[in-house]
């Protein structure tokens, strides 16, 4: 059996070598499909890693509560896409924040509510700018560095805002002398008390682009917009040992608060790094689907070329059967050839995908993520493609009548 396998392997090699150009083009088809999958997975992995690293930086004592959509995810994402405000129907509210802050072992609780609105300053007007509503605990949980001024404090809770660095530049063309100036949102005036240091992490677990955001107290935010939707609550536990216990207590408290509804998720540790937005998941899923389609096209290429190969080698099949090859032997021979073609393509695609990922990563803030799971997935996928698209030509070869096949001359 082992000898037969080796023979098949060698025969596949001979056949692929004989038809070099054809085999190369077929492999290329598979390679492009695999490369796009690898590219997407490694970049998505890179993004997840970025968030994971950020969570690690903030500390392992972080607990995050996120709302669950009561509807199925696709509908909610479409809703999210079509509405101007993300988490239009968040299940979290300000009273939840208060409930959590009463739990023992919780050091700080900060809600994160996002709104978008027009901002006017004396110099420029910016449409649709991200406004983050939170509370004073926010800075205790996430140590954002201040470039100038200070974060919101008890003295200036109301009517004060902190600007992101890029936003400050956009509004006043400066970052140093914006303190004390005012901006106007929905007719309300707010005084700038601080400007953040550059964060340069547009992707993070808060789903907030701090460089381009206005930070204000959540109570002020609720005054200028009709409904404040809390997309996330960040919690700092007293110490890491009680993380599990505290998160359970938060869970219980929220269930009680919501009269039994479990429409939220409490996560800590690695779970947090799962990208905050389901939009992200859907987009990556769709991209992978598109890549999978190109892989299917590559697979059809393999099938096509194998059918040609079977037709061309009718005579050989006849000879082999005449000297004692069973249909199964012939099946294995051609299936092997298809497998080798697609695995070669997969290998090629893996390399190509990573090269592309590295090229792309030079202009993005994250490094591509290389893992054994992606390599294993690629291998299994190409194996499956080889079998799925190789089985029909192989069956066709195996079912050939030896007498008719022998009549085919080269």
């Amino acid at each position: 059996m082992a000898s037969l396998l080796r023979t098949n392997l060698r025969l596949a090699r001979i056949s692929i070598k004989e038809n070099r150009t054809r085999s190369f083009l077929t492999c290329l088809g598979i390679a492009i499909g695999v490369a796009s999958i690898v590219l997407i997975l490694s970049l998505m992995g890179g993004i997840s890693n970025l968030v994971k690293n950020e969570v690690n930086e903030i500390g392992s004592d972080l607990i995050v509560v996120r709302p669950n959509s009561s509807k199925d995810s696709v509908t909610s994402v479409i809703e999210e896409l079509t509405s101007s405000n993300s988490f239009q129907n968040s299940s979290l509210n300000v009273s939840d924040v208060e409930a959590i802050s009463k739990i023992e072992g919780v050091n700080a609780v900060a809600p994160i509510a996002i709104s978008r609105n027009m901002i006017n300053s004396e110099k420029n007007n910016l449409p649709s700018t991200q406004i983050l509503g939170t509370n004073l605990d926010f800075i205790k949980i996430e140590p954002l560095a201040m470039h100038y001024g200070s974060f919101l404090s008890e003295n200036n809770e109301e009517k004060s805002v902190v600007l992101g660095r890029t936003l400050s530049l956009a509004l006043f063309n400066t970052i140093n002398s914006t303190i004390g100036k005012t901006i106007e949102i929905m007719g309300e005036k707010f005084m700038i008390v601080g400007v953040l240091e550059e964060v340069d992490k547009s992707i993070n677990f808060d789903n907030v682009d701090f460089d381009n955001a206005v930070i204000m107290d959540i109570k002020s935010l609720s005054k200028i917009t009709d409904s404040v939707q809390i997309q996330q609550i960040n919690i700092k536990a007293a110490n890491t040992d009680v993380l599990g216990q505290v998160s359970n207590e938060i869970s219980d408290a929220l269930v009680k608060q919501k009269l039994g509804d479990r429409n939220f998720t409490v996560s800590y540790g690695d779970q947090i790094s799962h990208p905050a937005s389901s939009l992200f998941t859907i987009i990556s899923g769709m991209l992978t689907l598109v890549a999978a389609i190109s892989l299917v096209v590559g697979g059809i290429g393999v099938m096509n070329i194998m059918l040609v190969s079977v037709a061309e080698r009718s005579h050989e099949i006849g000879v082999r059967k005449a000297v004692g090859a069973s249909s199964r032997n012939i099946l294995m021979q051609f299936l092997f050839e298809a497998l080798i073609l697609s695995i070669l393509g997969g290998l090629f695609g893996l390399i190509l995908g990573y090269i592309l990922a590295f090229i792309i990563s030079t202009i993005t803030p994250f490094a591509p993520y290389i893992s054994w799971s992606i390599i294993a997935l690629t291998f299994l996928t190409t194996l499956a493609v080889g079998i799925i698209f190789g089985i029909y030509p192989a069956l066709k070869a195996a079912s050939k009548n030896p007498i008719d096949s022998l009549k085919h001359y080269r």
Partner: protein
Amino acid sequence: MEENLIELKGLTKSYGYGDAKYFALKDFDLSIKRGEFIMIMGPSGCGKTTLLNIIGLLDRATRGEYLLNGENVISISSRRQAKLRAKKIGFIFQNFNLIEDLPVIENVALPLVYTGYSKTAQLKNASSILKRFHLQEREYYLPYQLSGGQQQRVAIARAIVGDPEIILADEPTGNLDSRSSRIVMEELKAIHEEGNTIIMVTHNPALTVYATRVINMLDGQIDTDVKTVADQNLPQPVNVKIKKRKKARRK
């Protein structure tokens, strides 16, 4: 008396339906003993090749009985057919039917690939057979680099490498000049003298001198059947030789 190697009873092969029905073989009866060298002659379309294909388990009869070594093989699975082809039957064709992409030695070793020989044993056996045909220097030539006569000798080597019980030859000299034909026939004669059973289809009456039995076919039936050598004088296989070759087998 030893039982017949091949026993055909009422063998019929038909093609088509109704008015267009055509019989390639019609109630064909034939017994073949070990060690016979049978030449089958007859006009084109008389069913010679069909008969050879059925004996060689490449084709199935429409009805009738075919006993090979006493075993009825008419309705066995195609997998078992393939196994029997690999172990008991060697084919020689008019157009050699070598695989163009494989070197001579691997063409010869082909039947061994499907009978569980190790790679080394395959090549060893093929090499020793090629030596016998004085082709040892051309082991790694590709078929197109050989003359027709050499190619046919390679094909004969392939037919006997697995030590089959029956060698079936379909006009083996049909594509060869007279000199190559003679060499090929001498080889077949030598193989026969070692006790092998050969069934050969030919159009050339001059070749019947090599045969121990000549069968003339007409319209799917036997027309004449002449034995030139008495049954008890047929060469019988030397068991030692078989054992020696089987030794190389793994397991």
